[in-house]
Every structure is written in structure tokens, then in C-alpha cells.
């Protein structure tokens, strides 16, 4: 019996009872639809997180005080005092191969006032090379210069969020002044918006001041919050990280790396952690959806078993007229596979539509993975075979006389 005959006959049989066929397919439609929608949404989320983290610069190593050891009692970030500006200078002076820039930062939150407006934002004390390290672009004015650092100048570069909070959206505030902790600062520049909120908070809601000014005049401390090391290329990240690590251990007079009072991490580390988390979520969601797929498969098996019982006489007749076992199996398997693949294709359309609508509603980039589409069709076909095999085998093994006698 040719395949085309099998398929045509199966479609013919399935259309005889449209309601039942529709209900049997519904389980697969829901199953495949939810798998596609959830996997696609999960991937959209993952992409969004990756894009945000990568916008921070991928060749960046960050040194922060304190160790990331499980079980340790950790104080609030930024309150550790073990990292000094001298550490950053030492890294720079060591001339390690592969290092492009070394920048030191001190981050604190403070109230910023301009005229009648005020906002609570992050104040970051930085060096002049911060612009290059974080690949910041200037929209208005200029960035901080080395001379600003050495002279403890009271000048500030603002993020666009701060500008719109204090001066109004789109206003050029260069030349105006604002007060941080009652100290007057002159605005010399505004950065271009970076968007997103990765590590280090919203990159647009920020006030950049000279590190020396932040340490001595604003906050009265002698330590720094972090050291950013820009590496020439990705391949050198591991070597540079190791060299900096041993050098800092040496400077801090610590024997064993296990007792280090600082932590070095890269954007890749954060990216990896974030990917792991979003990956787990995607798998979890797909797993839940897969359960509905399983239920759909059982529904198909149930309907096929009913069909086999109903058509016992027909099966008996077919066997009496010379149908071999494999022909009967092929006939019922074809019906089951057509049911599930039809369900798979319809479910796929619904799944794509759902993920398209939802990703638009929650402002995620819409991603459509072709692998998941092909997988959906293959999986629905496999479900058809898996859950159709038992009813088909049952039909094929009916004894022709018993089947003919069946009322």
C-alpha cells in the first residue's frame, strides 16, 4: 500500500468525526503551543540580559574588596576598606602585558540638588581614563581630565537620567552648577545614554566626579570601591587576571589565594551566571509545558484505542481480505501521526503568536528559534508514533474471525 494512499485514507477517516479529531488534536496543540511560546520567551529574556551585560564592555576585569567565599560574613558592598588607589597605580606601573587601561572608582549614593530640583543618585569618583574603560560617549561638553583629578576640581559629568531629573529632558546643562552634600560642582559634560541596568546599576543615573574630590572632599575616605582593568583582547583575560591576583596578594601580604581580601571578576563571569539562571528558567518553563505535551499524547492514545475498538469489524474485514499486520499498523500509525503533526503545526502557529504578543507587551526582543520549530514538528511526530504504536499493534493483532464476529 502506497504512502499517499495511506495518508489520503487516514485523512478521510479522520474527517468522518471532526469533533473527536479536533478534541484529540487540542491536547497536542496546547502542548506544542506552550512549549514554543515558553522556550521562545525564555530565549528572549536571555538575549535581553546578555545584551545589557555586554553593553558594559566585555574585556573588563573588575577588582572589588572582600572575598566571595561561601559562609563568610560580608559587609555591605563598598564599605570594605582594603582596596586603595595605590593598588590601582601599582597594577598600572607593573606594565602587565595585555592591560590597556586601569581605572579606580569609588561609588556612593548621595542627594544631588540643582535649583529647586533634587534627586538621589550614585556618585562615582573616577579617573580620567574611565571614559575609555567604560566606553562612554559624551553628548555635551567634555569628560574629566587628569588635571581635574590632580587639582581636586569640583566638576561633574552627568548621566542623561540625572540631567532630565534635575534640569529637564534634553536640556544642555553644561556650565550650570549643582550641589552634592552641600558642595557646589560645575557641570562640564553629559554622557550619551547607555540604557539598561546591568552590573553597577543604571548607567544613565550617574554623576561622575574626580576620584580625588570624591575621596577627600565628598566622603572623607582613603579607600576605593573598585578597580576596573581594561584588557586588550579576550584571550588575555585569564593571564591578566592571574597576574593582578598574585600581585595584589603580594601587596596585601597574604600567603594563600584562599584568604584573599579582594575578588576579581569579568563581565563574562556575570554573563555566565546570568545565562545559567535564565537557562534554568527556560528549561523549567519548557519542562512544565512538556507535561501538557505528554497529557496530549495520552489523549491521542485514548482516542486511537477507542477508534480501534469501534472499527474492530472493519479491521477484521481488512485482514480477511488480505491485509497484513504491517499494513494495519501503518494505517493506524498514519492516523495517529497525522493527528499529532496537525496538532503540532497548529500549536506552533499559536505558540509563535503568543510569544510575539507577550514579548511586545513586556518589551522583550522577539526571538524565533527555527530549531524549536523543527523540534516541535519532530516531537509531535514522535508522540504520534509513541502513543499510536500500542493501539495500532492492538488492531494488527486482532484475530480476523473474532474481529468479524464483533458486534
Amino acid at each position, binding site marked *: *500500500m502506497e504512502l499517499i*494512499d495511506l495518508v489520503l485514507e487516514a485523512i478521510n477517516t479522520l474527517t*468522518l468525526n471532526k469533533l473527536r479529531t479536533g478534541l484529540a488534536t487540542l491536547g497536542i496543540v496546547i502542548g506544542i503551543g506552550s512549549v514554543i511560546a515558553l522556550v521562545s520567551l525564555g530565549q528572549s529574556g536571555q538575549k535581553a540580559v546578555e545584551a545589557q551585560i555586554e553593553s558594559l564592555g566585555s574585556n573588563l576585569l573588575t577588582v572589588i574588596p572582600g572575598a566571595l567565599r561561601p559562609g563568610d560574613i560580608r559587609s555591605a558592598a563598598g564599605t570594605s576598606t582594603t582596596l586603595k588607589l595605590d593598588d590601582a597605580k601599582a597594577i598600572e606601573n607593573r606594565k602587565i602585558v595585555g592591560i590597556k587601561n586601569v581605572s579606580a572608582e569609588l561609588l556612593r549614593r548621595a542627594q544631588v540638588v540643582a535649583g529647586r530640583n533634587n534627586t538621589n543618585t550614585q556618585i562615582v569618583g573616577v579617573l580620567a581614563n574611565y571614559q575609555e574603560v567604560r566606553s562612554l560617549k559624551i553628548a555635551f561638553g567634555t569628560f574629566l581630565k587628569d588635571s581635574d583629578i590632580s587639582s581636586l576640581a569640583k566638576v561633574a559629568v552627568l548621566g542623561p537620567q540625572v540631567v532630565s531629573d534635575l534640569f529637564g529632558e534634553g536640556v544642555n546643562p553644561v556650565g550650570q552648577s549643582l550641589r552634592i552634600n552641600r558642595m557646589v560642582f560645575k557641570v562640564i559634560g553629559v554622557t550619551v545614554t547607555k540604557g539598561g541596568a546591568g552590573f553597577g546599576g543604571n548607567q544613565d543615573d550617574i554623576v561622575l566626579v574626580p576620584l580625588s574630590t570624591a575621596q577627600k572632599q565628598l566622603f572623607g575616605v582613603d579607600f576605593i570601591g573598585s578597580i576596573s582593568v581594561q584588557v586588550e583582547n579576550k584571550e588575555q583575560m585569564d593571564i591578566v587576571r592571574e597576574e593582578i591576583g598574585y600581585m595584589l596578594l603580594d601587596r596585601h601580604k597574604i600567603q594563600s589565594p584562599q584568604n584573599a581580601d579582594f575578588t576579581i571578576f569579568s563581565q563574562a563571569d556575570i554573563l555566565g551566571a546570568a545565562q545559567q539562571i535564565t537557562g534554568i528558567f527556560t528549561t523549567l518553563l519548557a519542562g512544565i509545558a512538556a507535561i501538557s505535551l505528554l497529557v496530549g499524547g495520552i489523549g491521542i492514545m485514548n482516542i486511537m484505542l477507542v477508534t480501534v475498538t469501534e472499527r474492530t*469489524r*472493519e479491521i477484521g*474485514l*481488512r*485482514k*480477511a*481480505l*488480505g*491485509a*497484513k*499486520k*504491517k*499494513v494495519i499498523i501503518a494505517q493506524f500509525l498514519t492516523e495517529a501521526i497525522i493527528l499529532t503533526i496537525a496538532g503540532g503545526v497548529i500549536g506552533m502557529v499559536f505558540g509563535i503568536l503568543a510569544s510575539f504578543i507577550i514579548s511586545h507587551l513586556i518589551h522583550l526582543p522577539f526571538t524565533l528559534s527555527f530549531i524549536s520549530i523543527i523540534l516541535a514538528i519532530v516531537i509531535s511526530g514522535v508522540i504520534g508514533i509513541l502513543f499510536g504504536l500500542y493501539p495500532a499493534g492492538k488492531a494488527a493483532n486482532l*484475530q*480476523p*474471525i473474532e474481529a*468479524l464476529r464483533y458486534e
Partner: protein
Amino acid sequence: MIQISHVSKVYKNEEIETIALSDISFKIIAGEFVAIMGPSGSGKSTLMHILGALDLPTGGTYLLDGENVGKLKDDELADIRNRKIGFVFQAFNLLPRTSALKNVTLPMVYAGVPKEERFEIAKKFLEMVGLSDRMEHTPSQLSGGQQQRVAIARSLVMNPAILLADEPTGNIATSQAEEIMAIFQKLNEKGHTIVMITHEPNIAEHAKRIIHIRDGKIIEDGRRHKQLRAKK
């Protein structure tokens, strides 16, 4: 052609043995028209199933064209039924919601006959049974007699060695039953071997030979229907 030697059939059902056939032997040669008669429960249906390779004997041998049917596997039996035996059932057993033409092609589908050829042959046999104007009708649109004629056309398309008819007129109005029997007689005259089960003497009279069974045994094997008349 058909050689049945010492055939018996015992059904075992939860340790209760039911003997349906015991020690049956006979021969049917090509061109014969045999009626098997007997009251219900006599074992005539069981004998029919064995002759049709739908069931296997528990004892004895059944040779069909020299082949020992009792030794065959399921798929080989399916092949025998497909090529050597044409079935006509009491309940017609046509596929519902399927045209007469498609019903008649069914055995050829399983034999792998090409599509165009299938429909050509099916049309030829439907014309032969006088249904050339009913080919696209489904069974529910046909009378009992017409349905049985479709079934006869279906039984002939593979050009089988024997035609097995199980109470072929049992579900048909008497007027139409005669038409069916006329077709059988015409087929027999053309050389077809026919074995027919019936409990109606006037239907059995159309056969050249009548085998009577009771309680699973042959009680009479008469060659001429004149003898039957004489007995009555």
C-alpha cells in the same frame, strides 16, 4: 484443490473444552459448487473459517492447492486469503461511507495492484454483477441485494481459486436472494469453485453437492441434489 483430512477444532475456554469439529475429511475439486448445511452450532461456520484460512484447525491437515495451510504464519495466511479465497459474508461487510467502487478495489490495494488497473478491474466486475450505475453509491444507499452483489464483485477481483460464501442470502429479501443465487450459478458455470454455507434447503438446492454437518461431524455428503429431493 481442497483436501481436508481428519480435521478437528477444539476451543479451550477456562478449562472447558468445546469440540467444534471432529475428524472431518473431504475433498473439493476445481469447478465444484458445494453447499455445507447444518443447524446452528453444528460447526459449519468453524469449518468455513478453516476453509477460508481465517482460523487454523487444532488437528488434522488442510491442503489448499497442495499447500499445508495449518503450517503458515499470520502474514502468509493473509496472502492466501488475498490471492486464493474470495469471501462473501452474510452481513456483506462493506466499508461504511465508502463507495461501491472503492470497496471492490480493497483486496487489490493489499495485493499491490497499480491504482488505474485497480479501478479498471473493479468496474469490470461491478458491471458483471449488474451495478454499473451504482458504482459511486455508498453501502447505506444500496439495498441488501445490491450490497451483496458489491461483496461478490469484491470477492472476484483477485481471481481466487475458491469462492467462500457464508449464508450469502441470510440478510436479503427472498426476491433478491434468487438473483444472488443466479449470479453464483453463472460463476460456477464459468468454472469458479464455490463453497457456500446455508441452512435454507431451497438455497442449497442450487449447489451440485451438499455436505450435511451435525455436532462437528459430517453426516451426509451427497453428490447430486436429486438425492436430496428424493430423501425429502
